[in-house]
């Protein structure tokens, strides 16, 4: 993991001190709320329904145990003993006092963390594959490039006031766990026939009120030219992106207006001007790569008697192993997904005690490494097969062993109207209803991979457009209603879902999901996932079943 140097540490300390002074001036009435609002947002501090919310950046979703314990402690001291992991692999505290925020920023800075660029019209936290450095699927370690982008984009003077926010995702595996195609820029690591490392560059994807799957504007960008090319993309956007209408200010609107080909042409022209001077020297990339040097793995065989025996002896462990483990690149190791989707719990919430436990497990069994997924779960990327039974037992004691990763109850939900000032409707209780309806794990496994994503408003923090089943909360004369979409995907087969029909009242949503699942189980052929069946049949049979009563 990357370590901050002295300069980084001094900067964070200065920034926290500066904010302390700004808060004092605001409380004393020396600056107005209008003047202060932009300052607090630049430090990740929002005012929501019940309190302030602080959004802490977790660079490319990567944490060490010291950092996770610091977050747990902040949750305990300044919040209500918990935190909420988000779809940008960040952490939000929902019960923060303005007057406490400078002290919190000091505590974050002490563990090389901050809330800078978690809000505002700048380049936000980079999303990366949470299995980076652990999966055999990857061509290269995406954290190296994510970290280089983090350094390049932090306080970049030219890109600190873009027309709108800007989000980048990087994946180095064919299986995309970052939703790269619905980011402002999605980078997919590729290797050319001659072995050269590079990126497929996707620009202009996005969700919100105008969802787009981004087009590829360059099939192969040599890796050593990444930064000049990013600069060219950002410059074209900064110059031509709309500033007159914030609903049309994201780069996706510009790319759609110009057409991908013309946008790409303008980027190439700008890239010529930027030239190689805009690139990071190879030595700098090598230095960063050094900070992600492969963890020291033991030489093991890819079979653990202890693991096999535990599975045979304990069906609960066997079920968890079936659903929450992923293959590791090294023999004798596994990637462990920790579900933050306990049945009836709030998706993405973790108590301070749970965070402490995960930190302990990472230290004892997981090479000091913890990841956050954009699907609001945690990952221990490097656990020995021999240790899985004890890790599971500890997780289970803490309520963290729900065996549902990628299943129907592994639901993404934004905070919704329970917390968010922008929301039209609640998202969390809908997720809780659905999870309870599908509590039977045998049935959940029979259904297989099914991604439900819920947003409480059109801004789409809950990624509803790319849910296999998407649920969007709307406000109908002050009442909560929910529009369903089918067939979306945020993975390598990205697609925006199709609307099912008229919005449903809150108490009919879980029941409608049950109907959709029944149709799927009736219609599915061979090994089809829910998504595959929807794509083959279209929404018609699903629509007919859900709205049968109304006909």
């Amino acid at each position: 993991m990357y370590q901050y140097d002295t300069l980084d540490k001094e900067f964070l300390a200065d920034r926290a001190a500066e904010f302390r002074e700004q808060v004092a001036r605001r409380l004393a009435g020396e600056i107005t709320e209008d003047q202060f609002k932009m300052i607090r947002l630049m430090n990740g501090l929002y005012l929501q329904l019940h309190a302030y919310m602080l959004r802490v950046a977790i660079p490319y979703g990567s944490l060490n145990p010291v950092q996770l314990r610091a977050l747990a402690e902040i949750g305990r001291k300044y919040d209500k003993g918990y935190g909420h992991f988000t779809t940008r692999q960040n952490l939000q505290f929902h019960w923060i006092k303005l007057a406490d925020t400078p002290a919190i920023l000091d505590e974050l800075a002490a563990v090389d963390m901050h809330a800078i660029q978690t809000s505002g019209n700048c380049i936000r936290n980079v999303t990366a594959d949470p299995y980076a450095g652990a999966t055999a699927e990857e061509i290269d370690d995406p954290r190296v490039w994510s970290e280089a982008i983090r350094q390049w984009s932090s306080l970049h003077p030219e890109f600190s006031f873009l027309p709108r926010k800007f989000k980048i995702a990087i994946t180095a595996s064919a299986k995309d766990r970052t939703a790269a195609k619905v980011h402002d820029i999605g980078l997919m690591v590729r290797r050319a026939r001659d072995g050269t490392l590079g990126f497929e560059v996707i620009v202009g994807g996005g969700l919100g009120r105008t969802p787009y799957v981004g087009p590829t504007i360059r099939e192969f960008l040599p890796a050593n030219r990444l930064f000049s090319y990013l600069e060219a993309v950002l410059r074209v956007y900064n110059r031509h992106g709309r500033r007159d209408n914030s609903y049309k200010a994201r780069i996706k609107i510009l790319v759609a207006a110009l057409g991908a080909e013309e946008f790409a042409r303008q980027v190439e022209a700008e890239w010529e001007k930027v030239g190689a001077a805009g690139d990071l020297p190879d030595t700098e990339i090598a230095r960063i790569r050094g900070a992600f040097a492969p963890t020291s793995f033991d030489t093991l065989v890819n079979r653990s008697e202890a693991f096999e025996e535990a599975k045979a002896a304990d069906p609960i462990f066997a079920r968890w192993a079936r659903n929450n483990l992923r293959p590791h690149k090294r023999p004798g190791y596994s990637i462990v997904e920790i579900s933050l989707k306990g049945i009836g719990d709030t998706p993405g919430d973790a108590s301070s005690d749970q965070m402490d436990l995960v930190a302990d497990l990472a230290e004892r069994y997981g090479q000091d490494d913890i990841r956050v997924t954009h699907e609001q779960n945690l990952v221990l990327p490097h656990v020995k097969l021999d240790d899985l039974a004890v890790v599971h037992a500890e997780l289970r004691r803490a309520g963290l062993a729900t065996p549902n990763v990628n299943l129907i109850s592994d639901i993404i939900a934004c905070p919704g109207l329970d917390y968010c000032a922008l929301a039209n409707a609640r998202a969390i209780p809908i997720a809780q209803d659905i999870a309870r309806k599908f509590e039977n794990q045998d049935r959940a496994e029979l259904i297989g991979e099914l991604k439900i994503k819920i947003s409480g408003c059109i801004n789409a923090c809950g990624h509803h457009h790319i849910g296999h089943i998407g649920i969007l909360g709307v406000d109908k004369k002050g009442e909560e209603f929910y529009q369903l979409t089918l067939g979306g995907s945020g993975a390598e087969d990205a697609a925006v879902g199709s609307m099912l029909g008229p919005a449903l009242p809150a108490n009919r949503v879980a029941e409608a999901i049950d109907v959709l699942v029944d149709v799927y189980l009736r219609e599915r052929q061979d090994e089809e996932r829910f998504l595959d069946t929807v794509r083959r049949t279209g929404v018609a049979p699903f629509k007919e079943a859900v709205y049968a009563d109304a006909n």
Partner: protein
Amino acid sequence: MKALTANRLDDGEVVFWKSGRWVERFAEAELFADPETGEAAEAHAKNQPTAVVDAYLIDLVESEGLWAPLSYRERIRALGPTNHLGHGKQAEGGAAIEALQHASGAARSTGRVNLIKR
């Protein structure tokens, strides 16, 4: 019937206007039967930039013999999040809280203005 609400500057707590000061419990909020008194209080509140942020009037509806905010969003502000019943003002319990929890009625919240995602 209306009440005046805002978020307190230093901690973000939801507060309600009561005869020249801010209180945390909706049950203690001053009720405005005529529009002018409410608007006068709102104008006064907007002149208290070191006390509160974003003061606005909300519509009320009768519930179990008491008053409750008409919009769902405002009821959640007055109670706390529905996913953590131990968090927020609702944790205190009692008849006034229950009246809010049982209230029905729907309208778009007057607080939902000029909102843009940051």
